[in-house]
């Protein structure tokens, strides 16, 4: 009897684990799976603290060892092969960094220009939900997404279809995920083994 229970539990665990992986794999556009290379670098576009969460996700959980600076200057980013831009304007974040939204937009433009000149692949991530939407956030999202090879968006941030429309217009593959943790799994699936 005990053995049967263990067997059922093991089976459930394996099936559960397998189905999660399969779900993640299904989210990733096939042409993008495994094409993003290390070294990677994470910065914000808009000084959202979500960038710090993505850093912990990528480096602590997924052990990808990406560089990180929430307000990175181009020289810090230079040399990376994959740039992760975490999207969202935050008044608190801008205040802490001593930046106006105009200065931050300029910083992001310079980083994007460098990424383009060095042929980096760009992953745009939006994990902050509706709190990281609004006039300033939308403007900085609209600035970054056209440069991206893929956009990973946690569902709440696309309730109004903003990302769906923008990505369709800019022909950028959009991956919608239910949670930040799942966004990490997708990101891992995008990286070359």
């Amino acid at each position: 009897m005990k053995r049967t229970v263990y067997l059922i539990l093991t089976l459930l665990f394996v099936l559960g684990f397998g189905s999660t992986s399969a779900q993640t794999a299904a989210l990733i556009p096939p042409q993008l799976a495994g094409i993003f290379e290390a070294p990677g670098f994470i910065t914000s576009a808009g000084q959202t603290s979500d960038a710090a969460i993505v850093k912990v996700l990528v480096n602590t959980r997924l052990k990808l060892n990406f560089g990180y600076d929430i307000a990175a200057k181009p020289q810090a980013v230079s040399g990376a092969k994959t740039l992760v831009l975490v999207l969202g304007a935050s008044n608190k974040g801008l205040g802490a960094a001593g930046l106006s939204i105009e200065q931050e937009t300029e910083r992001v433009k310079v980083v994007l220009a460098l990424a383009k000149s060095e042929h980096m692949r760009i992953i745009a991530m939006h994990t902050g939900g509706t709190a990281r939407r609004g006039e300033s956030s939308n403007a900085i999202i609209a600035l970054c997404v056209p440069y991206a090879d893929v956009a990973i968006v946690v569902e709440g941030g696309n309730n109004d279809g903003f990302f769906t429309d923008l990505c369709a217009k800019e022909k950028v593959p959009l991956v919608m995920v239910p949670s930040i943790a799942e966004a990490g799994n997708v990101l891992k699936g995008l990286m070359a083994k």
Partner: protein
Amino acid sequence: MMKTKMHGERESTGNQHRWLGGFSKILLAIGLLFFVLSPSVFAADTIKPEVTARNGMVASAQPLASAAGLEILMAGGNAVDAAVASAFALGVVEPNATGLGGEGMMVIYLADKKVTTSIDYRSMAPLADMSKVKFPPDGHVSVAVPGTVAGLCLALEKYGTMSLAQVMAPAIRYARNGFIVSDTLASTIKDRFDPISKNDALLAILAPEGLPLEAGQIIRNPDLATTLEKIAAGGPDVFYKGEIADAIAEDMAKNGGYITKADLAAYTAIEREPVRGTYRGYEIISAPPPVGGLSVIEMLNILENFDLASEQPLSPRNVHLMAEAMKRGFADNSAFIGDPAYTKVPVAGLLDKEYARQRAKEIDPAKMTPAVKAGTPPEHPSTTHLSVVDKNGNMVALTQTISSFWGACVAVPGTGIILNNEMQNWSSKGPNSYAPGKRMRTTIAPTIIAQDGRPFVTMGTPGAGRIISTMVILAVNLLDYHMGVQEAIESPRFYARDTEKNLSIEARVPKETQDWLKSIGYSIKEYPDFDLFFGGAQAIVVDLETGIMHGGADPRRDGAVFGF
């Protein structure tokens, strides 16, 4: 109730007519006239219900903390017992804003003796010379010597009736069993996750599986439960001289911090005489320097020179007058208020009615003052809030803080204690400049209001620089506009300061008012309808005729009122 009109007030109509030139301005004037003269445009409907009770009431920033206080009241404790229980509980369930690593100030009314007193448990600078140190916004260097444990224990010992173990029991339970993360708490974790993620001990509490805790998840802090149990058993010496002091000092030494065991051993809470003033015949009793009660009274003194009640609460003129009073009060706050042990604070001068009258005369009713300077008060020969009322009429107004949300973003390993970042609050010069062992100025202002010697309001709010302005708005809402307590708390807020070019407002301030304010020189910075930026007030108002307690809590945070 005393009502006064200023000389310049009669002239305001004439001044307004002068700037009304074009057709659009005439339309604006008609709109304003309609707005000012119409019957109340403010429905008394509130988001949260006003709570009433007869035997005891607790209003705090978190439902479990209010429940902790209520549990103590129902077990026979007095208002001080309940306030201390709620304060310890707040340190567990609102750890982003307060806790053992923080500080505070409380004002107490003792009904049997008919006296008020206050306990200053503000944090203090370490005794080492840090005059060459640039104080960062987070990390070990930003931490000042915490005062919470000393202050709460002193209040309980002198004015409570129960043991530490009894009043700390709810806090210990919450820390051990955990509680559900609210949207507010989750957003504060995300907002400061960058510095939080640099401290392993704090990360283990707030992101036990690597990612920040989300709303709806359970947060537990068993190390904090153990720390609280040690304090409950051994008293404040465990924290300031015993094994917790060892843990704090060891963590500081390892990480470049300045606090030593000697600093902790040297800390004492100080009982001080509250500051007192009057506003339209009511007595205002508030927290003394180095905190902001004096400035609340000064601003009310200035406003007493205007008949605010003759217009709607958010009429253009009233918002303008209040903004101008705030700017003058803040300018004087910066110029004169500091630790009274290190600087001579002109308390009586700043509370002087004639001085306030002079400050009021500076206000042009039809024009914003672009630059407000500190005044010259006359010389005199002296120099996360919770409110509790018990069935005997004892009252406590208590405000605590760890400065920024999550303080220094440092947890002391093995203790669950999150440390403050108060050292960022020094000014570069003036009465609040740094000195070893000194207490820095902040704006907290727990306040009690009395009528004919009978206290009937206990109120306060967190909110950094907005504390003083929000307290003034609350007092005016209650005393001039006679709002119910919940309505007074939920009413739209605004904030003006001498050092800031913007008038910050919640979007619910009427458009007509905003347009007029812009037309007389204000830059408006609009915040959402209900914004945490303006604090999270809690208040209890007692009907002096019936004895019924009315409690209000702020929907801008997770405030809750419980009574029985």
